[in-house]
Each structure stands twice: as C-alpha cells, then as structure tokens.
C-alpha cells in the first residue's frame, strides 16, 4: 500500500482530479453502451446518421480519455508523448488530404521528422521561449526556403501555406495542451483577495480543458438540432448555427463554473472558470468551422474517409487544436505571474482616453 501511495503521489493526479477523471470515463462509458444499444435497434423512428455520428464521437472520445488517463498515471513525459502521437497522426491526415508536389517531398520529411518531434521535446523540457517560436518563425522560414531550392515554382505560395498551416494547427497548436502541465500557477484567495501559490496538480487544468471542449462540442451539436435557426455559413456546414455557438458558449460556461464549485481541480475562481470555459467553447466552435471549410474546399467529408478505413483523428481534435493555445496563454498570463499581469493591465488601461 505505501508503494501504491507513493506512486500515486508522483503521478499527475490527486484525489479531486481522479474523481473527475473517473466521472468522465463513467459518463462516456454509459454513452458508449447506450449508443451500442441504439445501433442494434431496428430504429424506424431514429435517424441512423445521427446515431452513427454520436457513436463515432463517443467511441473516439472514450479512447482519447482512456489513453489520457493511463498516461497521466505515469507522469508528464508520457502525457507529452501521447500528444506527440496524436499530432503526428493528425498531420499525416492533413498532408494526405493536401495536394503536394514532388518538390515538397524533402521539406515534408523535415516537417514530420524534425519539427514535429522537436516541438514536443521542447515542451517536455519546459522550454517556453523556444517552443513558442520555432514553428511559427523558423519553420515558416525553412519551408519556403527548402521548397524554393527544389526549383518547382508551380503554385508555390499555396503549397508552402498549406504545409505551414498543417504544422501550425496539428503540431504547434495542439502541443499547448500538454504544455499546461508545466505551468506553475497561482490562485486568488477570494476571502483575503490575495494571490497565493496553487497547491493542486497541474493535470487538473488539462482535464478541465479537455472536458470543456467535449462539453462544448456536445452542447453545440444539441443546440443546433434543437434550437438552430440561423445557419452561419451554409457553404461550410449546413448544421452549424449562431444559436449553437452562443448556446454552447453559455452552457459550457455554466458547466465550467459548476465543475469548479463542486470539484475545484483548477486554480481559477468560480467566475474565472466560467470565463475560461466560454473562451474554450468559442475557440472550439471556430476550430471545427475552419476545419470544415478546409474539408469542403478539398471535397472530402471527413478526414476519416479520406483513406478508406482510417479513424479520422483530425475530425475529433480540430476543436482541441484551436482552443489549446488561447487557453494556455490566457492561463499563463493571468495565473503564472499575477503581479506582472496586473502591471500590464494597468499600463494598458492607462492608455485609454477615459
């Protein structure tokens, strides 16, 4: 028992995060069994396509959460490695869908085997200064430079933009999710109004983030079906509505506040958790809209059907990719060095004319 205890202490989890994790897995597990049962029904009054979508999503999320739970038991490094593999697979799907030319081959080799692993190595070593700039600056200079040397100029700008975008979304953006584990955060004591060091486990912040993305996706889907009237862009996605985006943001904010009040796994105040959840929701929605737009442009419905029989990883994590960097930076700005954040805020507000 003491061995188990010390192992648990060294894992990324504590009592509260473990309860949250078990709760998520339970909810997903029940949904999964439910959708399996629904699929067996002859289902005259049920829409088969909706059930299939539901089943795909639940299975994918159950898989992701199970793997995340296991990796979190074994510490930060393994969690980073897990996200590396997700990134790698998503980038594979993205580049497979993107038409590249012969001249891009060697550039793609470096993108897959240098920049992608390097990004995660830097995250694992907690080198914030490096992992925030290597892909957006150095990779974006390397890619056009290397392609130019091959002498193939056909659709040059288009090709480099596509490769760069894939790298940015699938690798750079997603790597900010495991980077949350390395933040040293503070919390605002609401009785004394003073900042104190947060003593919780950082896995709580990552779990909060992942759960909020899922809640947002689910609520978005539900609001679209139940109350959706004003379609945002029918050419991109005929089911996404303004009611869905707003409803999901409000609903996710409420869910975020509830989680923080019942099971405080993050250093956020209850209203802070609400604001962060709403932010995650809006970013998640715009993420899936963007990826839908790319898929429509390429004429594919899902990355999963792109090559027969593959599970579309990118279909599931598009919302995570968009929300991760924003959530990371807002959390880091306000809670890693709160005095500094207050100072910057003061300086900015002093510039206002009123």
């Amino acid at each position, binding site marked *: 028992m003491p061995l188990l205890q010390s192992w648990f202490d060294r894992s990324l989890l504590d009592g509260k995060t473990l309860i949250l994790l078990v709760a998520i897995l339970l909810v997903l597990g029940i949904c999964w069994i439910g959708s399996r049962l629904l699929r067996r029904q002859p289902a005259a009054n049920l829409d088969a396509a909706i059930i299939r979508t539901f089943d795909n999503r639940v299975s994918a999320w159950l898989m992701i959460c199970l793997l995340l739970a296991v990796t979190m038991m074994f510490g930060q490094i393994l969690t980073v490695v897990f996200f590396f593999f997700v990134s790698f697979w998503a980038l594979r*799907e993205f580049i*497979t869908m993107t038409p*590249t030319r012969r001249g891009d081959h060697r550039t793609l*080799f470096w993108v897959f085997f240098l920049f992608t692993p390097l990004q995660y190595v830097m995250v694992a070593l907690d080198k914030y200064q490096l992992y925030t700039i290597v892909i957006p600056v150095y990779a974006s200079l390397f890619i056009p430079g290397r392609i130019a040397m091959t002498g193939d100029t056909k659709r040059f700008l288009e090709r480099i933009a596509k490769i760069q975008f894939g790298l940015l979304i699938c690798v750079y953006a997603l790597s900010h999710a495991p980077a949350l584990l390395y933040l040293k955060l503070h919390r605002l004591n609401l009785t004394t109004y003073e900042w104190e060091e947060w003593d919780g486990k950082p896995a709580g912040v990552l779990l909060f983030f992942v759960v909020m993305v899922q809640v947002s996706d689910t609520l978005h889907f539900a609001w679209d079906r139940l109350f959706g009237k004003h379609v945002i862009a029918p050419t991109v996605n005929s089911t996404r509505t303004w009611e869905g985006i707003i409803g999901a943001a409000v609903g996710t904010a409420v869910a975020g506040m509830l989680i923080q009040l019942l099971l405080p796994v993050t250093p956020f105040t209850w209203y802070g958790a609400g604001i962060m959840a709403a932010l995650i929701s809006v970013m998640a929605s715009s993420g899936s809209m963007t990826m839908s737009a790319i898929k429509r442009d390429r004429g594919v419905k899902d990355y999963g059907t*792109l090559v*027969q*029989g*593959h599970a579309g990883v990118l279909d599931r994590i598009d919302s995570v990719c968009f929300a991760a960097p924003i959530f990371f930076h807002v959390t880091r700005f306000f809670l890693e060095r709160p005095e500094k954040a207050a100072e910057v805020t003061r300086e900015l507000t002093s510039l206002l004319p009123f």
Partner: protein
Amino acid sequence: MKSLSVPVLAGLAKFFSGATVRWVGCEPDSCQRVYFANHTSHLDALVLWASLPKQLRSITRPVAAKDYWDGGPVRRYVSSLFNVILIDRKQVKAHNSPIDMMIREIGSRDSLIVFPEGSRNPTGEMRDFKSGMYYLAKKRPDLEFMPVYIDNLNRVMPKGEFLPVPLLSCITIGPPMWLETGERKQQFLSRARAEIVKLKEQDSNEA
C-alpha cells in the same frame, strides 16, 4: 535473427506507409495466387507484402527488379527478409526466361506479387501491361490472379527519393480473375488492367 527482423520490417513498412488493406469481393487465402498491382513507388512490393496477413507473408514472394534491390548492402539485406525473387531487367533471354524462373521458385506452395507495368510511371498514370503475366497465366492456369490497387504510396516515397514521408496510403485487393479459354494475349492484359482501374474508381467514389 530472421524470425525477429521479419515482423519488425513488416511493422516498419506498415507504419511508414500508413496502409490500410481492403479485401473487396475476396478473402485472404493460402491458395496459390498472383497479386498484380499498379507500380508507383519502390515501396510497393514491400508494403503490399507487409499488408498481407502474417501467415501469408512467408509464402508470398514479390517479384522485383534486381538492379534496385541488389544495390547496396541495406537493400540486399531487406530483400532477403521478404523473400524477393529478383529479376534482371537487362538480361531477359529466351533460355533464361523470368517466367520460368518464377514458376520454378514458387513450386506448388508460394504466391507471387508482380507489377506488370514493368517500371514505375512518375506521373502516376498506369502504363500498358507487359506480356509476362499472360505467359504466366498460360503456363499455370490454376493460379488465381488478384488485382491490387495501390493508392498514395507514390507520395510516401516518390521515384528518386530515399527517405519516406509518412502519409496514409490504401491497398485495395479485388476479386480473382483467370485466363479464359481461347483468350488472346492483348485481351487478357487489357482485362487485367481494367480490373485495377475499376478498383481505383470504386475507391474514389466511396471516399
């Protein structure tokens, strides 16, 4: 040593090519077959072989070009692992016919993987088939000829490159065909080619 490195090689080939295999209108079977596929990359033979079920790998022999797989110790070692039958493209002679050699090599147990286009086409468009497959069918009418369509592997490793880029590819294996009685060479070859084109069109319709 070989029993260890063969699964490793198959695993690596499957990982880098991200290949999914679909058997359309047929099932894996240990009967003697000839898998004939479009040729787009040096990896074709290796990946197609690797994506067969494990029991079939040891009895399936890709036919590949000697000038490529004999070049250098690494390629020679790899080709020894997946039982390649090496054909010298430059010295095809009547007394040393590759077809006779293939028939000799497979005996009454093994299957073959052949690329009847002969060489890879950089544009990706399929060439006309060489006649070897017809003579093979004529001498061994009991063999099942399985059409295979390999998609996207030319992007994983294009002609002239030696480092792979791990994109996703797809291998579709279609229903078997045989040489009909009295069927002429050109008829048989274009029918075989059409089978692969059919798999290709199915593939793009479903996606």
